[in-house]
């Protein structure tokens, strides 16, 4: 049998999702006490851990310090046991370097670096299990970790991948779908403004279809945002009002998430929160 049927005639994907549905997302913030900020995320079977240090003084050569803003340093690695066949080395290969650069670009766009001139922010991301959409998982984990560290950001950065099969855009590709070799697009979005922090695609896709795929990825990133937002709220202020994240709705959202007035609760809002436009 040649080629898996990625999208059946009935509209189901290999794993039973429909075209626009996300995989199950679970996340936790503050998993390590030692770091300034940390988070763990599971998107389906893709699992990533992010740790943030800083802002702190420049380590190593002082010459790298930027006079007007903070330096964002990102490092990506994936565990040797993360893939089906065991990897040789966890980091330092081409792919890891590239991923580190992409993460750096993404977060330079989101973190308000000018607030911390001449200092450095370190973001370390490790993928524990890779099952497609590693970039998206890393960005989402890192966002949560940065939030946990209390570093001011313009907005969340939410990322999601999308692919294109038989004229339909598929959101949040799994490993099987990625391996089929179709076009794959990774998008990191600032959800409130809809601004794009990073857009990457390294396959051929006809220009006319791009909009459709982009639309699907953006919608998926917005959905991711709702979930991450709840994770943050629950972390800072655990409440029985929020159902356990494990059974959170994903994919098709029902908008009945209870909204709570912050002021009534006398809630301390970290400064990054005050800057997000949706809270004002």
């Amino acid at each position, binding site marked *: *049998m040649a080629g898996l049927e990625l999208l059946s005639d009935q509209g189901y994907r290999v*794993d039973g999702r429909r075209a626009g549905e996300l995989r*199950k997302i679970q996340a936790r913030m503050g998993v390590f006490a030692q770091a300034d900020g940390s988070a763990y995320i599971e998107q389906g*079977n893709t699992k990533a851990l992010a740790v943030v240090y800083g802002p702190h003084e420049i380590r190593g050569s002082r010459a790298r310090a930027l006079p007007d803003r903070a330096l964002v340093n990102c490092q990506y690695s994936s565990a040797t046991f993360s893939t*089906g066949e065991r990897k040789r080395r966890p980091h330092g290969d081409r792919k890891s370097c590239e991923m580190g650069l992409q993460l750096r670009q993404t977060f330079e766009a989101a973190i308000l670096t000018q607030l911390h001139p001449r200092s450095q922010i370190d973001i370390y991301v490790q993928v524990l299990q890779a099952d497609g959409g590693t970039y998206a998982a890393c960005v989402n984990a890192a966002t949560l970790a940065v939030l946990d560290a209390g570093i001011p950001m313009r907005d969340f950065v939410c990322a999601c991948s999308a692919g294109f099969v*038989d004229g339909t855009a598929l959101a949040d590709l*799994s490993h099987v779908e990625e391996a089929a070799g179709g076009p794959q697009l990774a998008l990191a979005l600032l959800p409130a403004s809809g601004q794009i922090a990073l857009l990457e695609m390294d396959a051929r896709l006809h220009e006319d279809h791009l909009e459709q795929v982009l639309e699907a990825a953006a919608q998926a990133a917005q959905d991711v945002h709702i979930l991450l937002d709840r994770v943050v709220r629950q972390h800072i202020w655990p409440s029985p009002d929020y159902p356990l994240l494990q059974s959170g709705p994903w994919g098709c959202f029902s908008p009945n998430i209870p909204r709570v007035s912050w002021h009534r609760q006398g809630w301390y809002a970290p400064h990054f929160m005050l800057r997000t436009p949706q809270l004002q």
Partner: protein
Amino acid sequence: MLQKREKVLLLRTFQGRTLRIVREHYLRPCVPCHSPLCPQPAACSHDGKLLSSDVTHYVIPDWKVVQDYLEILEFPELKGIIFMQTACQAVQHQRGRRQYNKLRNLLKDARHDCILFANEFQQCCYLPRERGESTEKWQTRSIYNAAVWYYHHCQDRMPIVMVTEDEEAIQQYGSETEGVFVISFKNYLDNFWPDLKAARELCDSILQSRRERENESQESHGKEYPEHLPLEVLEAGIKSGRYIQGILNVNKHRAQMEAFVRLQGASSKDSDLVSDILIHGMKARNRSIHGDVVVVELLPKNEWKGRTTALCENDSDDKAWGESPTEPMPTGRVVGILQKNWRDYVVTFPSKEEVQSQGKNAQKILVTPWDYRIPKIRISTQQAEALQDFRVVVRIDSWESTSVYPNGHFVRVLGRIRDLEGEIATILVENSISVVPFSEAQMCEMPVNTPENPWKVSPEEERERKDLRRSHLVFSIDPKGCEDVDDTLSVRTLHNGNLELGVHIADVTHFVAPNSYIDIEARTRATTYYLADRRYDMLPSILSADLCSLLGGVDRYAVSIMWELDKTSYEIKKVWYGRTIIRSAYKLFYEAAQELLDGNLSIIDDIPEFRDLDEKSRQAKLEELVWAIGKLTDIARHVRAKRDGCGALELEGVEVRVQLDEKKNIHDLIPKQPLEVHETVAECMILANHWVAKKIWESFPHQVLLRQHPPPHQEFFSELRECAKAKGFFIDTRSNKTLADSLDNANDPNDPVVNRLLRSMATQAMSNALYFSTGACKEEEFHHYGLALDKYTHFTSPIRRYSDIVVHRLLMAAISKENKMEIKGNLFSNKDLEELCRHINNRNRAAQHSQKQSTELFQCMYFKDKDPDTEERCVSDGVIYSIRTNGVLVFIPRFGIKGAAYLKNKDGLVISCGSDSRSEWKPGSLQRFQNKITSTTTDGESVTFHLFDHVTVRISVQASRCHSDTIRLEIISNKPYKIPNTELFHQSPPLLKSELVKEVTKSVEEAQLAQEVKVDIIQEEYQEYCQTKGRSLYTLLEEIKDLALLDVSNSYGI
């Protein structure tokens, strides 16, 4: 709310290690159940088809049943079938893409009452596989579990029958749940469908062939063929250029020895191979069958072989023709088959004597397919003796590497050998044409038009459509006596002095809703099939001859294109597309229109519309009409000139003329001098097609259906150039224009046949015009070579072509899009459209082949039972148009027959012509030159045949039991044939094909009458059958053009 589960799979890597893979699996509470009994239709959110509500039970086939008995499940009588996803996946994984696609098409087809239930994604139906449980057991358990759920989901209101081949499952689950019955498939057919004999027979036949196969695999003889390589190796090999992918074409005349692989796709570009690859012998062919997509490996150069150019008969064994083949060509062997294109085959059982000689195993019988290119098939059946005199349909099941012949099973009986109906049915099956009468459900969708209940224009439509009934003078020009008119024309002067030209096409899509039963049927047929004596319509006659026919004096719906043209330069200023209501004022025939155009007004007595008018109004109306026709001709001339200016050519006219003369029936339709009116109408239609193509392409760049005609390969013209050189002509084939010009010049005043033959060679060298989806092709490739247009489509004959219906819908969608209205119904996506184009192209080819084969059938029947030595008509004049090493190919203008004549017979004797030019067989040798062949006898006499020489041939029929009869030609004199009566010679008219058909059918009738002693007057029917084929000349030209562009690579062993 979805639930997440995990599935652990153990896969084997290429290196052979096992790999543990964890895949997510999401379950959902609501999966569409597609049942009308569903208690929560909103939650299940059905889209697509539902099971019908008038069934007594639902039937759920187990995975094994779906795999093995899919053919039976395809019977339209079986209703309420639920295919479980588990079963479908089992087919996909274990039976390959072909069978899976068959299943998918079945599920998509609205005529079949079956649905797919995605049980593995339903949270109550999904069962994880348990430790140590075999896949088969798990599949059966899952399907049963889903069946039980489904039963309860429908609130126990519909009993469910699960059919399985697994005895244990029947034992285990048989009485577990009330209302869900588990029985075997055979049992099910016996109990629930006792009347469906065909299905039960098929079931038995499949069962038997499966048992045989099992036995055989246990026996395991020595290998007859090398094993096929695994798919990954093939794909990697194709990528690296080691192997080459292509379609296998078996040489019809040397089916045992020669086959060619036509390169396909990218592989041909990379390698420098231009020609096809020769596959020599059955062993190298390695179990592939004509039409399969195969992967070949090239042999080293010293093993390359040449193709044989000698003429030979199919039944003669290959040893006899061991003579000098041509220079070696790339030769290869098949290492794997990517796609098997097995279809239904018509076969003949061996006669009694042959059966005995086949020996020991009486139950296994080798049957001979009707198509020479298909190997013999081994069938196990007990009915062999009863089926001896019949043509029978079989299917191939498998071809193991241990077996010389493929295994198959018997499907159904077609008819007696040599019986006209049986042979026609054979032709239909061989071309995969299935034409059953329109069903009741389909006819129910049709509008009514009876004298008691006449069809009327509805007020809603009147509001929506532009009404041209009063404002425009609309008329049609068609052949005389034509009943179904699908195109009309109009022209008038606008207030600003500009002209308005209109083309109005019957609005078939108004009556044929997308995905209605009639639409699906029309899509399946794709075209109207014309055989020599009958036709099979694409749409029921209520539409094709009545409501969609734009007859004179009645209101009809139409789709119109109207151009505003500049009054003097005829530049197109504006164009309008839309739905209209028209009333055609005149239904003219070509001759009348031409007379009016020439200013000969006496013809008006022949036009019925003028008959009842008084003199004055008659004069006024006549002037109006004459002006319109004149203007129309002017415009057409102008448009034509413009097309010529753009480097266009007059090729289609040329081709048509060739084919016109060969296909005799057209001879009586077309006058000797083609009228200008023909060209006028044709030009208007081409203009309409072109503008529609542009319009729809602009609106939907990636998903419209257009028609392309790729430029021909220069190397195919080499034969044409050589032949022309023999007569001293030079043919320039560099562009379409030079080709047409040089063909015009290549005219021998003494022998008009030469030009005809050259033209037919030119058309044979060209490739077919094809439909395609714009998303599948680059824009430069849209070009139409024959018409020299950048975009072209078919729009003007929706009554007899499905492509035109698709284009009509696209045009309607384009108009809605332009007006910012929502598009009704879904358009085909590029992928679906590509598939549809493939289907339509395929059907068109089948239509052409069946027409050709049926014509040949009639030719043979015409000459059969005539004693060739005495009958006058069996001797005729022929022209040599090609030379082979042991014979020549001859064209007989009188009957339009092409065939081979041997110069050397089976005993090795060669032809010689004495002083009286009578030919005899004598010992001697043949010598072949570029454009002549010389036969020298041992006693020194020699005779030479040149290209385009006229000879006298005797026509006889070579009967064949298993195949179609063939015409045999024998040269009896090297001088042109002279009819004793010289007066007759000049007047001897070519025999019209329609006459031939009539004569043959009559004799068949008589034979039948004699048998049955029953008087049926069927003559009238023949008259009906022999009617005009197309309604207008234009459609006819189009048809002929298609014919002319037919792929004839496999004729005469070349």
